[in-house]
């Protein structure tokens, strides 16, 4: 599985995604924002970081990078695209995913663990989890409050496009939803389920040496992903 990992000026989690893919036996490689060809990628990851310093709005400038038209075509072909954190923000800005990621309700950057429930297991990134699994992985963001117009939100729920939701464990002394995201949304997919964006960072807990590797299955799912046979919608 060839996995293109995009580097925008200011990306800083691309080595983390690279390692996570390589560990599961995939073939990661970097592409630069100025590239225009995905070089036969089977999947694309837009990593975390601060593309263009997050100046103006997170992801707003990166979405115009020369590489993005190729990503749009790849997505339109139904192939897997994952945006993590800043990558999620770029996907929303570019319209590949609906909604927007706004300043955290607490107005502060937040680096902490969150508990998220896997709501969908038929995406290329979550197939190795069981529906309802709750995993604890880190977030690190200042702009992670998922927002969408009421109609969009209703549609996301109806279509089952919510992939990850923040949950609160009993008797903890911190809110389960760290940023005020509507409907506790931590990650969503597009209609076809091939494009996924998420605020938490599974790639940061994917190495046995770190003491927890609960994030690994996002990458093992991807590396072993087989595209389902096309079902005609006609």
């Amino acid at each position, binding site marked *: 599985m060839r996995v293109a990992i995009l580097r925008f000026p200011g990306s800083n989690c691309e080595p983390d995604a690279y390692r996570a893919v390589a560990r599961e036996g995939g073939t990661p490689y970097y592409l630069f924002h100025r590239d225009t060809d995905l070089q036969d990628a089977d999947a694309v990851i837009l990593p975390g970081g601060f593309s263009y310093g997050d100046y*103006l*709005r997170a992801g*707003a*400038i990166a979405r*115009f990078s020369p590489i993005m038209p190729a990503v749009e075509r790849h997505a339109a072909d139904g192939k897997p695209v994952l945006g993590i954190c800043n990558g999620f923000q770029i996907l*929303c*800005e570019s319209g590949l995913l609906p*909604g*927007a990621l*706004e*300043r*955290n*309700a*607490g*107005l502060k950057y937040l680096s902490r663990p969150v508990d998220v429930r896997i709501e969908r297991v038929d995406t290329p990134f979550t197939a190795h989890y069981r529906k309802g699994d709750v995993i604890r992985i880190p977030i690190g963001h200042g702009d992670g*409050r998922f*927002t*969408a*117009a009421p109609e969009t939100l209703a549609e996301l729920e109806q279509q089952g496009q919510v992939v990850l939701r923040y949950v609160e464990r009993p008797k903890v002394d911190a809110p389960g939803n760290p940023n*005020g995201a509507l409907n506790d949304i931590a990650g969503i997919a597009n209609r076809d389920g091939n494009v996924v964006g998420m605020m938490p960072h599974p790639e940061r807990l994917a190495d046995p040496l770190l003491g927890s590797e609960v994030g690994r299955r996002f990458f093992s799912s991807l590396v072993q992903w087989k595209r389902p046979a096309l079902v005609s919608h006609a």
Partner: protein
Amino acid sequence: MSFRVHIRVMPRRGLLDPQGQAVERALGALQFAGASNVHVGKAIELDVAAQDEASARAAARAMCDKLLANPVTEDFEIAVEPK
């Protein structure tokens, strides 16, 4: 000709504006009792070279549509003055 363009990008009415709320609370705490309905957005200023005011304004609108404002969550206003 060159125009100075002032753009105000504000959170869309009805959406949560935590920053506006925080400022409103802080103003209250500082005893600025008369302040209410506070919203915080972005101010962008730039020079635009254009034939006339109308085209400077049109250019600024295009910039907002494309880049400067997020159509999902923000509204914008443009003011143009000759330099």
